[in-house]
């Protein structure tokens, strides 16, 4: 921690001595304060604070970061901007939430700023995220972090048991079963085959979509896997989702007994202590394993971009059919993959009603965070919570090796990330109005009740369908169809 402070001080001194390397001129934004609101903790927020100090030295604009518990973040920003309180200039939040805010006219259109920005290097941003930053063709967001889920496995444990890394979700179960109960960190205690954060109101609803996507989406990102794009009828009450739900519940047999009460903090504590064989996680475990408190697993956690299914959904009948090149053009060796861009990523958006000078300074800061010079360093540091989203970050293993990655891990990790980012069948998270309600409330609640044995899988799926329909009605079906089609326009092609 003191090292970070020293770094920040050094940068500040350096920047002020050499007259700033930021995109704005020195002293340009004197007297301007940019008020940012984001989630608490070192993750995401701390980096904004650190870089904010550099930015202040370079441009004179003060950067204030207010932290609000994650569960209340969207609420507070939306209420602040839509009721005209305007105490926040920049919100750094889940990119998917922006559609609702943009639809209400609350976000500043950044396209003119981007056009004038020479340092941003938009082309370097991976195509999926580059398109993600746009809503309706206009730049509304700047990413600071790119999120999607992958599967991790303990290379040493699998090798010791003569197992190959899983390719399909059935493989996942088989591997988990085989290694469950073995001692994976040498402390004499039985450890767990698979660790997934299944707690309600946490991140469980992302993991289930990672599992289901590959069985439902086959024709590329523009197909989507939640709704029928023409009618907004939920596509969740069918055999594919049912198989996904059942598999998700089955993994519980090979996991920690407390799994239903584990959120991501708990599972991360577990795998860092070396007690998990398989994980469904975001990009963080890659850099996390080289931190001091992860000595037990350093260099041992390898990644796979996505697991697939060898049966996919036939949308006409609602049944599972074996994979063929016709019904799944992107399948490989009879397995259909669909990496799920869970959460989308943390991105910054600017309040349309802030005053013009502040908006300029806010854009300059977000651009500063996004530029390769800063971002490429940040994504290699695990605790920042920033994951790679620029091609320059992924093409250069030296960056990562310098940060402490063993060479083979760097190759594997970057390969997995690139594989996902460039996959034409990447599945998008909800990016339409009510996103949080569709996934975080309805899907999450019914999933939790199914896992707890309160309801059967058929009831859960039926409830989700009913719940989603209600939300669609609430927001207006026609508008939702419009927004959904807009959000699916994001693609890797």
């Amino acid at each position, binding site marked *: 921690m003191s090292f970070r402070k020293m770094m920040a001080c050094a940068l500040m001194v350096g920047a002020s001595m050499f007259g700033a390397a930021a995109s704005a001129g020195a002293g340009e934004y004197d007297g301007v304060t940019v008020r940012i609101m984001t989630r608490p903790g070192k993750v995401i927020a701390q980096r904004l604070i650190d870089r904010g100090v550099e930015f202040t030295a370079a441009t004179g604009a003060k950067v204030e970061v207010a932290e609000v518990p994650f569960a209340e973040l969207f609420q507070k920003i939306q209420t*602040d901007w839509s009721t*005209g309180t305007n105490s926040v200039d920049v919100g750094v939040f889940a990119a998917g939430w922006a559609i609702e805010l943009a639809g209400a006219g609350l976000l500043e259109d950044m396209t003119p700023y981007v056009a004038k920005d020479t340092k941003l290097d938009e082309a370097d941003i991976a195509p999926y995220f580059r398109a993600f930053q746009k809503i309706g063709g206009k730049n509304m967001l700047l990413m600071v972090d790119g999120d999607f889920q992958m599967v991790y496995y303990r290379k040493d444990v699998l090798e010791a048991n003569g197992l190959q890394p899983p390719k399909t979700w059935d493989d996942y179960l088989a591997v988990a079963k085989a290694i469950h109960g073995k001692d994976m960190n040498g402390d004499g205690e039985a450890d767990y085959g698979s660790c997934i954060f299944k707690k309600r109101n946490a991140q469980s609803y992302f993991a289930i979509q990672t599992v289901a996507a590959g069985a439902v989406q086959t024709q590329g990102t523009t197909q989507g896997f939640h709704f029928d794009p023409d009618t907004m009828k939920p596509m969740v009450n069918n055999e594919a989702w049912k198989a996904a739900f059942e598999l998700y519940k089955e993994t519980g047999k090979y996991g920690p007994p407390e799994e239903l009460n584990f959120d991501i903090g708990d599972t991360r*504590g577990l795998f860092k202590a070396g007690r998990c064989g398989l994980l469904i996680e975001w990009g963080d475990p890659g850099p996390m394993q080289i931190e001091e408190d992860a000595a037990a697993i350093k260099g041992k956690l390898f990644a796979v971009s996505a697991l697939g299914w060898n049966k996919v959904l036939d949308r006409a009948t609602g049944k599972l059919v074996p994979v063929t090149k016709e019904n799944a053009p992107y399948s490989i060796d009879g397995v259909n993959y669909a990496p799920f861009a869970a959460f989308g990523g943390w991105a910054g958006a600017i309040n349309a009603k802030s005053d013009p000078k502040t908006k300029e300074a806010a854009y300059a800061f977000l651009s500063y965070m996004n530029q390769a010079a800063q971002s490429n360093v940040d994504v290699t540091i695990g605790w920042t919570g920033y994951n790679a989203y620029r091609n320059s970050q992924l093409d250069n293993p030296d960056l990562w090796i310098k940060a402490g990655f063993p060479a083979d891990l760097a190759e594997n990790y970057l390969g997995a990330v690139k594989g996902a980012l460039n996959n034409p069948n990447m599945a998008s998270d909800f990016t339409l109005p009510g996103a949080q309600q569709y996934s975080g409330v309805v899907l999450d609640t019914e999933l939790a009740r199914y896992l707890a044995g309160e309801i059967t899988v058929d009831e859960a799926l039926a409830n989700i369908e009913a719940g989603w329909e209600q939300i669609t009605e609430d927001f207006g079906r026609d508008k939702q169809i419009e927004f959904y089609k807009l959000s699916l326009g994001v693609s890797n092609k």
Partner: protein
Amino acid sequence: MSAPAKYDLSRRSLFERLFEPPRIGAMAPATKVIVYTVLGLWTLFVVFPIYWVVVTSFKLPQHVNEGPVYIPFVDYMPSLHAWQALLVTDFGDTLRSYINSFVVSIGATVLCIIIGSMAAYALARMQYKPKLGIILTFVAVLLAALVVTILAGVDWKLTMAAALAVFFFLARALGKHFKATLGNGDILFWIISQRILPPIVVIIPIYLMFQQVGLIDTHLGLILAYTVGNLPIAVWLMYDFFSGLPIELEESAQLDGATRFGIFWEIVLPLTKPGLAATTLLVLILNWNEYLMAVFLSTSKAQTMPILVAAMNAGDRGILWWTMCVVIVVMILPVIAMAVILQRFIAKGVLLGAVKG
């Protein structure tokens, strides 16, 4: 009459020696053992979580994640990293939350006790007879105004002004026809029943109200909200204490020409010092620990300590147990100090009461 056999120490069997008290007002040995054991067990139950919190504030992440370690220096080497993080690195944030908590809690407590005791005294000593009709008219006019504001989107300043005018007009015109009245007991019940209201019911309208007048994220806003939240308790408790006082003292003071306020300030309040101290302590604790209203009504400048606790649950980094325990420990110290200070008043008063009665 000679003492019953059980008190005749010369003729006691072993059973009686164990289970009968040796003299009046004392306890039998077996009873003593049971009582101290039970109290001891409960003390353990109370103290252990607190001990665990204090000890965890000195732990490193691996001491928490790898399994329980119990005794510092024996099971693990304690580390000051969490304390450093909170009190050195993030000192600005921590200090700000601390000061906010202090200002808001003490401000709200003072306001609440003053307003609450005055109202409680009034209800205990003066007669009120509000007319039921007037009250119903008020509610009806208010409801109409709110419907117009919320559903028809009319500006609230307009509807509120109109509502007040309409109400006064109606009150004047119809006042004579209303006969049914309510009494002190009803007013008291109404005030106390506000406590039953779950805060979640009122928090959104209050947020919107405050936002219209610019009270969001200010000390004043929080103080007002907290005061109203705890007013029922203050009124309830002080009413009990006031009605327990003999009325003769006040009547004789009145005859001597003292003003109402003088009686209240110089005679009644000093007599209820222990009750006042106890109520103040309770309201202070409730204000210090309030979370829901702080979350809704503040964004960054007026954040209080409980929000700092919640912020330690960093979501996908996991709960930073070590720093959270530091915050909890730091939060409880002023409360203990306050309790110790006020405890003297409570104890002294009890003694006084015992001597008097």
